[in-house]
């Protein structure tokens, strides 16, 4: 059902689901640079964009913003991959943050996220979900473009949460972590 692929040795791994050609990490960046995929995605969710919250951003601009954000994120990970774990200040820990459980419980966006598309303090709508099994060791289980409120977010996030839980069980079964191991569900 699952395979694990190394992205950065001893630091970043990704789950590859049997049904997919690529691992989740690679798949996300492929989708986030695929105009056909993005146009179709934003067309489907265009009502979520046509709000003051997103500054009534057009589909065209939403696509370009996604590409830019994915590119910035990819550059950061490449840099970390090339520097390895030698530089403590520059590791994956600086990119990922603990998953906000509220995201899985309610539709409304937490206040702290409300700056995400405004100004320099904007927060990306790209999400990468991972399990941290040890300091600076992450296993990516999935990801999404997270638009909120009217999007059927509960179902969408529930799916991602299920994936996180399934992978956690898989890691226990494989003896990589123990039942009572302290792990974190993480998102970028």
């Amino acid at each position, binding site marked *: 059902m699952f395979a694990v692929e*190394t992205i950065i040795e001893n630091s970043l791994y990704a789950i590859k689901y049997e049904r997919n050609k690529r*691992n989740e*990490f690679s798949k996300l*960046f492929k989708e986030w*640079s695929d*105009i056909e995929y993005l146009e179709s995605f934003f067309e489907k969710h265009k009502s979520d964009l046509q709000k003051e919250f997103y500054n009534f951003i057009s589909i065209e601009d939403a696509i370009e913003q996604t590409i830019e954000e994915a590119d910035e994120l*990819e550059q950061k990970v490449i840099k970390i*991959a090339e520097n390895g774990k030698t530089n403590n200040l520059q590791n994956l820990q600086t990119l990922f943050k603990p998953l906000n459980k509220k995201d899985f419980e309610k539709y409304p966006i937490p206040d702290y996220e409300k700056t995400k598309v405004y100004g320099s303090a904007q927060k990306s709508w790209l999400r990468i979900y991972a399990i941290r099994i040890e300091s600076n060791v992450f296993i990516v289980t999935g990801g999404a473009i997270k638009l909120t409120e009217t999007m059927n977010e509960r179902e969408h996030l529930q799916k991602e949460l299920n994936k996180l839980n399934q992978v956690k069980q898989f890691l226990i079964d494989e003896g990589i972590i123990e039942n009572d*191991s302290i792990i974190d569900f993480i998102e970028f």
Partner: protein
Amino acid sequence: MANINKLNNLATNNSNWLEEAKNRQKNKEWLKHSQKIAIKVLRTLREKSIKQKELAAMISVTPQQVNKIVKGKENLTLETISKLENALEIKLIFSKNESKSISKSFKIEKEYVYFHIYSNRETIVNKKTDYNLNTEYFNHNCVNEKSANYGY
């Protein structure tokens, strides 16, 4: 404490992410153009209810090539771009001083201005105010054009 050795034994090195990511970075400049063209083409296809397959027939390429174009990953030739422009009746390439925000009506006025440059210098100088053109823009574009064409 997680067993990282077990994880490393289980994990394969089949991921091609790093290679793909480096390629994306290496080709970033032209990919950006390709992506912008893909956005415009896709939005036009949607607006005009044209299928990718139909576009392929219109510009005499395979549907697979059209699919690469709309994914924004194709290093397009000028020939293909021109075919796309003609088939979809859109503008994909703008010269240095044009931008995608220039409206069609403004462009028509500008072409009209150019027409006068080529035919009568005095006329165009008078038109400068009429069209509310920026002086620097006017001098740079019009006079240089004129110099090149008329040996001023």
